């Protein structure tokens, strides 16, 4: 069943917020699909980068539940290929910021024994605490 979406003030506000966070003129995206076609991670994503852009354009906040922006490795393949000169990795970062700023703590380091934390890769620890600082 195709989803029915409603455009309202909240969706406008969401779009404005992502534009502000990413610094990219998201309304410029023409949905040509070059980004998705060239993305090395697209097979792992639930929605393609161009679909992600469309969802942001329409102010659909369910885009935040998507895996796509977390899988973006900022390889910038899409950025160099985008005919409209958009930097999708910045958009992905903007979306990650929105989620991170909600400061939902899925991983409380205090719940882990010290030995286990020692074993964890440093980047994982930084990522876990970063949401509280940015």
């Amino acid at each position: 069943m195709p989803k029915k979406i409603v455009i309202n003030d909240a969706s406008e506000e969401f779009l404005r917020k992502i534009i502000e966070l990413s610094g990219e003129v998201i309304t410029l995206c023409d949905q040509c699909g070059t980004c998705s076609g060239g993305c090395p991670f697209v097979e792992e994503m639930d929605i393609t980068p161009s679909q992600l852009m469309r969802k942001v354009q329409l102010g659909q906040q369910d885009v935040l539940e998507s895996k796509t922006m977390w899988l973006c490795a900022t390889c910038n393949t899409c950025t160099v290929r985008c005919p409209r000169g958009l930097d999708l990795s910045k958009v992905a970062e903007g979306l990650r910021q929105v989620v991170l700023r909600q400061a939902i703590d899925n991983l409380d380091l205090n719940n882990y024994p010290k030995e286990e934390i020692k074993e964890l890769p440093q980047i994982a620890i930084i990522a876990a605490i970063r949401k509280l600082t940015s």
Partner: protein
Amino acid sequence: MYATKLASLLKQVKPEKEIYIFYTDIRAYGKGFEEYYKKAQTMGIKYIRGKVAELEENPENKKVILRAEDTLSRQVIESEFDLVVLSTGLQLSNSSEKIINFLKLTKSSDGFLQEAHPKYKPVDTNIEGVFIAGTAQGPKDIPDTVAQASAAAARSMVSLAQKEFQVDPMLAYVHPDKCDGCGDCLNVCPKDAIVMNKETGKAEVLEALCIGCGACLPSCSKEALDFHGYTNDQMYAAIQGVLDQKKENETRIIIFADDTCTYRVADAVGIRKMKYSEDTRIIRVPSSSRISPNLMLYAFKEGADAIILGDCVKKSSRFPWSKEMTEKSLEIVNEKLKSAGIDGRRVVFSEFSAGALNYFLNIVNGMAENLKQYERIKETQRKEL
């Protein structure tokens, strides 16, 4: 594009307005148009690919609820808008109707004025000395209108600079000795080029108005109307000529090919070395409407087995009335053929365009194939005509 323009203007004055443009296809074809579209997107105007399906009023706040599919993301959008504007297509202005009727200009099927030729005479009309420009001829932006208007002005200067006005020599004329002044031809001419000379009491063709279709010729029962370059004598001789070598067991299909379309398509077919029935003989005419019933019946009498009358497709024809006029002649011929016991399907009218080669082959070869099914015309039947 004008939706983009209006949206941009509004957005410049009131940036807080959220503007959506629902479209099926963006055709930003002109110089700088694509950049303009991009600029509008940068300003934050949102483009949704999808036609608006439903509009209804919200009874609570009197706003418009709009439903459409965003065909890019395959989702249905439902939203409330303060104002919904319908972007309509451009039409010819109502006031043009008066001048069209006055000058007897032709309109093309899109409702705009028809140019004499879409490629070689884009600002001329079928009437010498009348030129068109701008949105009278078709939807256009300002630079294109200015360019076309300049061209029209330059074209009119060509006419004005001449001391004498030259007309195409292929025009209708009257044999005064044959004309008895019956007046049958007067109302036939779509350009009102035939008048009665009150002094002599005979019909007269105004050469400045005649555009050379020959549609008036069938109306004259005395064959007093004639056509320079395609005179009645020449036509009878041509028919006789193409049927002269016909042998006992052969068939002959005569194509009366109009100069602009049918003759060109036949030419193109030949250049491409495409094969069509060798029983075919082509006679060039200014337009199919020039062929009077007498000529067609004469062809059958002399041994023709089928006649194909070819003319341009109505909407792009120099003589859009050809089909109607030819069909009138066909009615008369069919009646005669019927009384002589000859199958009426042996005479057909068809519209050809100069590029439709296969269509031409289908019509000609189809007729050749059909002739094999029909009973051969007997000499006695031919004599009856």
